[in-house]
């Protein structure tokens, strides 16, 4: 599997580390216990497209949001996690899925 880092270009998997589901969002401080349990412990195991965080540790040290098919490893999209977070903050859609 190869990922195309927005800064570094196409690189092999050995340069990256998987850092988990990119679609979870931290609940409000006063959210229910269940919401926090979901956020901290519970993850879906999707068959198909999945948004996930990858860290380019052996390259530019950027965090990336990668959209990957969990069945085929087909990569649909790679974006800087920083840009994704900033866009979200601007559109004030911090609680939902990444658009």
């Amino acid at each position: 599997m190869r990922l195309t880092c927005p800064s570094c270009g196409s690189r092999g998997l050995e340069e990256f580390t998987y850092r988990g589901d990119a679609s979870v969002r931290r609940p409000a401080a006063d959210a229910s216990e269940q919401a926090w349990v979901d956020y901290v412990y519970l993850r879906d195991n999707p068959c198909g497209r999945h948004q996930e965080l990858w860290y380019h540790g052996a390259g530019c040290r950027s965090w990336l949001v990668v959209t990957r098919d969990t069945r085929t490893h087909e990569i649909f999209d790679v974006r800087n996690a920083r840009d994704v977070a900033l866009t979200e903050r601007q559109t004030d859609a911090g609680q939902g899925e990444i658009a």
Partner: protein
Amino acid sequence: MADQLFPVPPVKYGSLRVGGMTLEQSPFAETVSLGAFLGAGRDELVNRIHEMFGVILPEHPRAVHAADGRCTFLWNGPGQWLAIAVEGLGLLSRLREVCGDVCALTSQSDSRAILKLSGPNVREVASRLVPIDLHPRVFGKDHVASTLAGHIPVIIWQTEDAPTYLFLVFRSLAASLFHDFSVALNGLSYSETDSCV
């Protein structure tokens, strides 16, 4: 009396010549990392460096040379660069004056060693260890890349069209990288093994 500390070179061998190619330690360089502060720090940093050094800090993995030729800036991640100069320029104090208020400056001179690989066929030798495409169509003079040489993190910088490569490597891993390159060099050359037969 306290024991005196003696500087020890990161690689104890001088240089290695195989099949007309040379692997050697590049002379000591002053290295400073620049990390732009959030907000307007980045643009201001680019402006200040442009004013003082006559170059635009690159947005992509490239090396750019100061107008006076005494200092080079390497892209080192988004909003981050490495400044490299020959020893004795006082690079850190000069940068502190120019842009110390808009970016984080850290001396990296002691953190890294630089190995230089030059001569014919060095692209093939480097390709044995580095997993990125070094074909001249995509990687040319003053291109840089942060990647792995085998399992060792390196910054590779092509300094000549010929090509010649510099490898910036964490100092404690420099001897291992030197060894790995010596194996790669000998594996490619006919002369060494031929003469042993």
